[in-house]
């Protein structure tokens, strides 16, 4: 019995997945190497407001059976308001809790599309994008037969402001919704919130600044229906009231989640989900070697078993030949080495880091498979984001080249002797892969003329150490995942000057430049969605080329294995998780 990290166990590959969701696909199924630009014209294909219910059930789908999902990871919460990590949101959104809108897998384009869920369409914004109206479908019921009303949606919106009682969820509502900076949720400030109004089946949400992406945001579990009478913030996450095809049968936080069919779900109201299997059995915190072996050997119940962890290098070659049981794809996440702009103030030194970082060596030593679980790149926005521009911030650097000579040259031009400039970074001593990657990084930085000082931490504490303002580190290894497929979910959340000094360090580079902040405000407040997407792409290029505040250490890829009787498992490239909503056992 191996207990690699006491307590919460999170796979190394997914360790840096900070935020959930986002990122509509780019039409690429395996290695998303984008040569040339991906223009904003793709944005239209991400949405389908006219998707019709019921969702198609494939002819080779058997009815019944149970899926077993084994994973090394443990979801931190299953409360809809707090769910932000991709594993929690995928499990809740695909199977248990319906929201106003949803993402649905489109087989023809191997892509996720935004379609209506409990709403009749994708929302109707006012002309200035400061007010959005959604109409609830009729005939929606909870797992106990009671009807879903617009007031329940309104209550869920109010509940999302209770950040003190229900922390860690998405916080765009505080930035964009009316009174978002004043209203503190129904438990503190009562039910009087001016930002959401219900009339019959209509829910209208009012903004205090233009918010063009509300239709995307409405797909989060936070916008499900929550009956206020059944709500208790401490315990709701143990059994949220289901509106989707499955409901909680038993949940042991940290170890197991059992889902069974919800007979009150009507397929004629849901254009995105099917209800083929009888139930789901999620087992968390499993040993990686063991679960990979079970699935690869495909004996007995392993044929209906799957995982959403990335396959490890040792098992990848065994399964790579059996392509039918390996699902690969992209997930809209970029890993970065955020360079602290308040500590490393010389642009030349930052650029030297971009040449000295040992991309390939660090990936391999960390157990990543280049091209499968990590894809090199230079733009901050990952492939598949609407309006993305592909560029090279450092001429000749494609995201995988290490050139110690160029790094030394830049350091010399900045006035530093080899071995003089000290880079301090964190690693986890109890995570073997982290230690191995650290050794390669030290070698690479030293060859590039830096002095590398790794600072030890543990898997438990590395996230708090990273965001500790008193820590001596001057680079932070972290990342970001799109919350939805436009730059609007990237730059305001991590690169805004207002976020410097905020608790939890949401701006890991401490990036604060007047011209960039002004540009962000211009895009947010004055541009329409069609013009905003390519503007964010240009923003990406300008920021990296002019200031180079972060080293792009690769986009994430997914490589998930499953048993031979698992059908309908594709890569949900909005989250990098399996398309739970459309899975079935084959006949």
């Amino acid at each position, binding site marked *: 019995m*191996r*207990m*690699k*990290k*006491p307590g919460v166990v999170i796979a190394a590959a997914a360790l840096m997945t900070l935020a959930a969701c986002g990122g509509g696909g780019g039409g690429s199924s395996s290695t998303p190497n984008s040569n040339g630009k991906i223009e904003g014209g793709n944005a239209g294909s991400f949405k389908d407001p006219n998707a019709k219910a019921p969702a198609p059930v494939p002819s080779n789908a058997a009815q019944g059976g149970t899926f077993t999902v084994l994973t090394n990871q443990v979801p931190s919460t299953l409360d809809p308001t707090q769910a932000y990590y991709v594993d929690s949101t995928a499990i809740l959104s695909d199977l248990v809790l319906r929201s106003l809108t949803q993402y649905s897998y489109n087989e023809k384009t191997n892509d996720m599309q935004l379609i209506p869920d409990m709403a009749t369409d994708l929302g109707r914004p006012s002309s200035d994008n400061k007010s959005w109206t959604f109409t609830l479908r009729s005939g929606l019921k909870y797992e106990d037969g009671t009807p879903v009303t617009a007031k329940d949606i309104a209550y869920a919106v109010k509940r999302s402001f209770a950040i003190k009682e229900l922390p860690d969820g998405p916080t765009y509502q505080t930035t964009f919704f009316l009174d978002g900076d004043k209203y503190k949720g129904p438990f503190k400030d009562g039910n009087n919130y001016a930002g959401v109004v219900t009339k019959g089946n209509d829910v209208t949400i009012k903004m205090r600044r233009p918010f063009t992406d509300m239709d995307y945001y409405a797909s989060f579990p936070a916008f499900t229906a929550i009956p206020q009478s059944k709500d208790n913030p401490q315990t709701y996450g143990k059994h949220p009231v289901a509106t989707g095809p499955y409901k909680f049968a038993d949940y042991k936080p940290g170890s197991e989640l059992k889902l069974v069919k919800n007979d009150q779900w009507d397929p004629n109201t849901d254009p995105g989900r099917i209800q083929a299997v009888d139930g789901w059995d999620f087992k968390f915190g499993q040993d*990686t*070697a063991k679960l*990979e*072996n079970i699935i690869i050997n495909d004996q007995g119940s392993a044929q209906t078993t799957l995982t959403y962890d990335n396959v*490890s*290098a*040792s*098992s*990848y*070659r*065994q399964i*790579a030949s059996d392509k039918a049981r390996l699902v690969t794809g992209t997930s809209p996440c970029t890993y970065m080495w955020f360079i602290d702009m308040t500590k490393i103030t010389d642009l030349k030194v930052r650029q030297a880091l971009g040449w000295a970082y*040992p991309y*390939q*060596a660090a990936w*391999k*030593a*960390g*157990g990543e*498979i*280049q*091209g499968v679980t990590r894809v090199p790149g230079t733009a901050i926005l990952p492939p598949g984001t609407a309006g993305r521009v592909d560029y090279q911030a450092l001429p000749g650097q494609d995201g995988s080249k290490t050139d110690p000579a160029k790094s030394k040259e830049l350091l010399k031009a900045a006035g530093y002797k080899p071995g003089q400039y000290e880079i301090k970074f964190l690693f986890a*001593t*109890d*995570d*073997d*892969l982290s*230690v*191995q990657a650290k*050794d*390669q990084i030290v070698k690479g930085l030293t060859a590039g003329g830096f002095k590398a*000082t*790794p*600072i*030890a*931490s*543990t898997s*438990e*504490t590395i996230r708090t150490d990273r965001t500790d303002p008193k820590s*001596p580190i001057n680079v932070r290894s972290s990342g970001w995942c799109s919350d939805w497929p436009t730059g609007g979910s990237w730059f305001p959340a991590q690169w805004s000057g207002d976020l410097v000094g905020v608790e939890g360090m949401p701006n890991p580079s401490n990036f604060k430049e007047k011209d960039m902040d002004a540009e962000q405000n211009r895009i947010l407040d004055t541009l329409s969605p069609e013009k905003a997407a390519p503007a964010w792409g240009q923003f990406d290029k300008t920021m990296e080329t002019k200031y180079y505040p972060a080293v792009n250490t690769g986009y994430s890829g997914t490589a998930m294995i499953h048993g031979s009787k698992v059908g309908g498992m594709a890569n949900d490239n909005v989250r990098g998780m399996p398309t739970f909503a459309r899975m079935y056992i084959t006949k």
Partner: protein
Amino acid sequence: MGISPAELSETDIHEDPNTPVKAAVAGRSPTQIALSRLRADKIAVVCLVVVVIYVLIAIFAPLLTDLFGVQLHQGDPVKDLDATNFPLYGPPDHGFTWKAPLGIAPNTGNDNLADWLYGARTSLIVATISTAASTLIGVVVGLIAGFSTGWVDRLINFIVDVFLSLPFILVALAVAPIIVIRFGQSPGKLVFWQFTALLLVLSLLTWMTLARLVRGEVLSLREREFVQAARVIGVPTRRILFKELLPNLLAPIIVSISLGLPAFVTAEAGLAYLGIGVVGVPSWGQTINRAVTFFDSYPLYLYAPVFGVLILVMALNLLGDAVRDAFDPKTRR
């Protein structure tokens, strides 16, 4: 009148050549008896040779790595590994090569033979120092506890009980992050203190069994006549403890050492497997930890350190058995 003995000539006294002559009695100490028995025991000799080989490997690890032309922790993942992070030369895909006699590790490209040789060194250092410290503490405490009366005995018993109640694995798990927080900022100090912490945890949580054993033996021995006699004569307590009692306690002490050495080797490997061993210093336990996921795709990577541990522990155990048997006067061979 008879002949006086002085007048008897020597040539008149002759012995029968067939009379059996008593051989000269050569006095042998118990240690010499034991050693000669050991020499006669074939298994013991083989095990001793194996252990000596391991000790030599541990001492001369740097020389041996140079001899084989390999280096420690010098793998280059970009040059030595293919797209799936498996080695480009040597096992498992390519045949045997002298460039890497035991192959190179996946993900990092580090040489396995160098890791093995230095891992032997780590295991033996940890085992030797921990056993020595643990035995020393246990014997001293046991002797004092057994021989003293009154409040000293009670105090020592209490201390032994406190230490016995500390759960070994939990203490090891608890100490590891504390060391990281305290020394995380300087990599050199961190490795030294992790190593020291491991040794301290291993020695301080295992001396109690021997202390109890020794105390029991001393209690039964101290009422014997030879001890009483020594006390009556006025021999100082220290002399009684170390010159009179200790030789009689050799058997349980040797058993404890012979059980302890392999147990510590296994413990170090197990702790590294749990993620709380020494980091940055090669060890068999860490290699086993990494190699478990490759057991079917790259078996040699796992079996090299496993056999390293297995053979060393078996040799130590069998040797300890034989030594115990040899030193016990009551066993007939």
